[in-house]
């Protein structure tokens, strides 16, 4: 106890101890106190609970965007005429592409990733325009990234239309307007700002990962060190041990929620249209679910290494990939849409996005709230059940 006996630390833990005493049964409060000591003593745990949200906010807020722009395109202009150069200039001026002249075989440009797409303007391009025919240019797209390839194809079709107008304008009046047009309006996110989409989702990801990971390790550690035997000798019942383990991490999780919320509102200008009380309630529920999921893992495995692998497999990848954070649940095959309903983050995702962007009320969010509450009960129940008080697994 040499490092954490500074007056500040002592005062802090005493305060927290008093706080836990108010909300928890006596034995659970004592255990919670002990856990706080563990956390404060270990700079890594604290660093992680602050470092992870900051890192994720920085990356997702500043660096990652799904806009397809500055696509590398190489152009092979075999005609080299006024009209073909007009097409090249239109592609360059569109703002979507970074244009460079082709250095040879178009397929090689793509296979070596010097370009994502190659435009080949065949010789005789201008002659065809002069004869009143519709000329044709060839577009080769790297399809291995299917999403980008689709968008590039769409952009190019638009650019070709504009270029055609320019080419025609050299000789005759512009073509008539389209007989049907859309007046498009985006609801809830008028300018399709992708941060408004990412930040509420990030809240889910950060809580989910931190919570599962940390609790999964703490109980497994007690088993490995043998200190669990001592805990079991004390009059604390399994529920006390579980509550005492979970409570300090609920506090840390709420801190992360506050950080993401604050950064989202202040730095990234994400609107918050729902009730803050509902967000708090939802966060608490989700925190409890994730923490008890971690507990269940560590109770079941009793080995830090296995617990870590399990929580990565059951926590990290499904949270990232199947919660609807990036890949929409609606696009999944029907079986998986049903499967995702057993994942807690998928439900909190609905709550978080609904509250931030849509201003959803308690009635619209009733289903996700009920599901989370049910999961919370089940996880804690099974953790207590499988928390055998015997020493040998």
């Amino acid at each position, binding site marked *: 106890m040499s490092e954490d006996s500074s007056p500040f630390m002592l005062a802090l833990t005493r305060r927290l101890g008093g706080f836990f005493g108010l909300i928890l049964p006596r034995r659970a409060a004592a255990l919670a106190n002990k856990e706080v000591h563990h956390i404060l003593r270990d700079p890594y745990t604290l660093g992680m609970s602050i470092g992870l949200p900051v890192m994720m906010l920085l990356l997702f807020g500043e660096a990652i965007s799904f806009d397809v722009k500055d696509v590398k395109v190489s152009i092979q202009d075999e005609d080299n005429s006024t009209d073909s150069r007009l097409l090249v200039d239109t592609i360059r001026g569109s703002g979507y592409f970074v244009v460079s002249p082709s250095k040879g075989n178009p397929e090689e440009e793509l296979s070596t990733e010097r370009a994502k797409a190659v435009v080949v303007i065949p010789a005789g391009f201008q002659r065809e325009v002069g004869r009143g025919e519709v000329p044709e240019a060839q577009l*080769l797209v790297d399809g291995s990234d299917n999403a980008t390839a689709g968008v590039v194809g769409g952009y190019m079709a638009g650019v070709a239309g504009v270029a055609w107008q320019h080419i025609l304008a050299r000789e005759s009046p512009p073509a008539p307007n389209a007989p049907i047009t859309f007046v498009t309006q985006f609801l809830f996110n008028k300018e399709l700002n992708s941060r408004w989409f990412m930040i509420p989702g990030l809240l889910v990801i950060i809580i989910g990962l931190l919570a599962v990971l940390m609790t999964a390790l703490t109980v497994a550690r007690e088993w490995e060190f043998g200190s669990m035997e001592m805990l079991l000798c004390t009059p604390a019942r399994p529920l006390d041990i579980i509550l005492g383990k979970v409570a300090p991490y609920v506090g840390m999780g709420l801190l992360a929620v506050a950080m993401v919320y604050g950064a989202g509102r202040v730095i990234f200008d994400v609107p918050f249209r729902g009730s803050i009380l509902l967000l708090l309630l939802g966060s608490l529920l989700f925190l409890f679910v994730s923490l008890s999921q971690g507990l269940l893992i560590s109770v079941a495995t009793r080995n830090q290494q*296995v617990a870590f692998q399990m929580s990565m497999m059951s926590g990290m990848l499904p949270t990232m990939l199947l919660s609807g954070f990036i890949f929409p649940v609606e696009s999944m095959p029907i079986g998986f849409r049903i499967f995702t309903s057993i994942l807690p983050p998928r439900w909190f995702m609905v709550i978080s996005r609904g509250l931030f962007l849509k201003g959803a009320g308690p009635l619209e969010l009733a289903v996700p709230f009920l599901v989370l509450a049910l999961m919370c009960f089940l996880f804690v129940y099974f953790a207590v059940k499988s928390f055998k008080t015997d020493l040998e697994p």
Partner: protein
Amino acid sequence: MNWRMLLAFSKKELVQTLRDRRMRSLLLLAPVIQLTLFGLALHNEVRNIRLAVYAAPSDTLAWDLGRRAAGTGWFLLKTDVDRNPFEALSSGQVDAALVAPPGGLTQAVGRGQGRIQLLVDGTNTTRAQGVVQYMDAIRMDVIQERVMNGAPFAPALRMDTRMLYNPTLESKYFMVPGVLAMLLLMVTLTLTSSSITREKELGTFETLLAAPITPGTILLGKALPYIILGLLDLPLILCVSYFIFSVPLRGPIWELYVASMAFIGCTVALGILLSTAAQNQQQAMMGSFLTLYPCQMLSGIIYPLDNMPKWLYWITYFNPLRYFAVLIRNILLKGGAPALFWPNVGALALLATVLLLVAWKRFKPTLN
């Protein structure tokens, strides 16, 4: 370097890891199951868009837009929805709504100003963009067939488009190799990061120090078994990718093995480096988690690299997963062009060497 010692030490490490039944299944079964799951579930194209049409039953053009949308397979036409389109969107009944002008679209087109409102839920930005793109294509079809009666509307410069390597633009071709690379990193890094700290925590590190074995041998002995285990995982997950998802293998298989060897060498070295820095297993695991996460995000597997700011783009050059993602997609889908293969494998080999050297320098075979 004593080769027999190294071999014996590696063997001990291998036995220790494979002894645990759960560890065996995590190593061999979990990656296979995960790749199958994610390959089946993940699509980055926009599907099942719920669309409602708000128009009089006699407004044939507006309904034609909706029916054609449903016919493409991307949209689901919803009829039983709230009478107010804004209400239907905010309660989540639909993702998009077409609202015909008063008097109907058919009449408006007759007057020469066919404007119809398209309301889109903007909560998911990529999805919203997809909706607009699809609807625009459908609009052009309707114009051509219904308004111009088959005569092409305003002849335009034609782009004869060909999608190489993935002609039907299936997302599994893109996702499966990416997830495969991610899984390989995850398994090898988490295993090795706790390998030395575990010995420290359990007290067996002292026994190791007392044994007549050099630090270099300890490090190599720790690295070798995990490289072997990683290389065992590779054919397993490749089978899943090839037989279940029919993702092609167009490049030579030796390229795949050389690339994987360089990559796993990198990840194992990284894990051992983490493990020398950590005091206990918890720290080691958090360290590996904090490494794993940025590695995945800055690899170009899910999030495009080209959009990143310059400073961050430079950081990605230190990310082994970035090179491996390029390599594996290139070998599987494009046939492994040497111009792309050698620089990336070289970068991986260089990274692995540097990481292993740093780990060796940092590794202090003392008790405190």
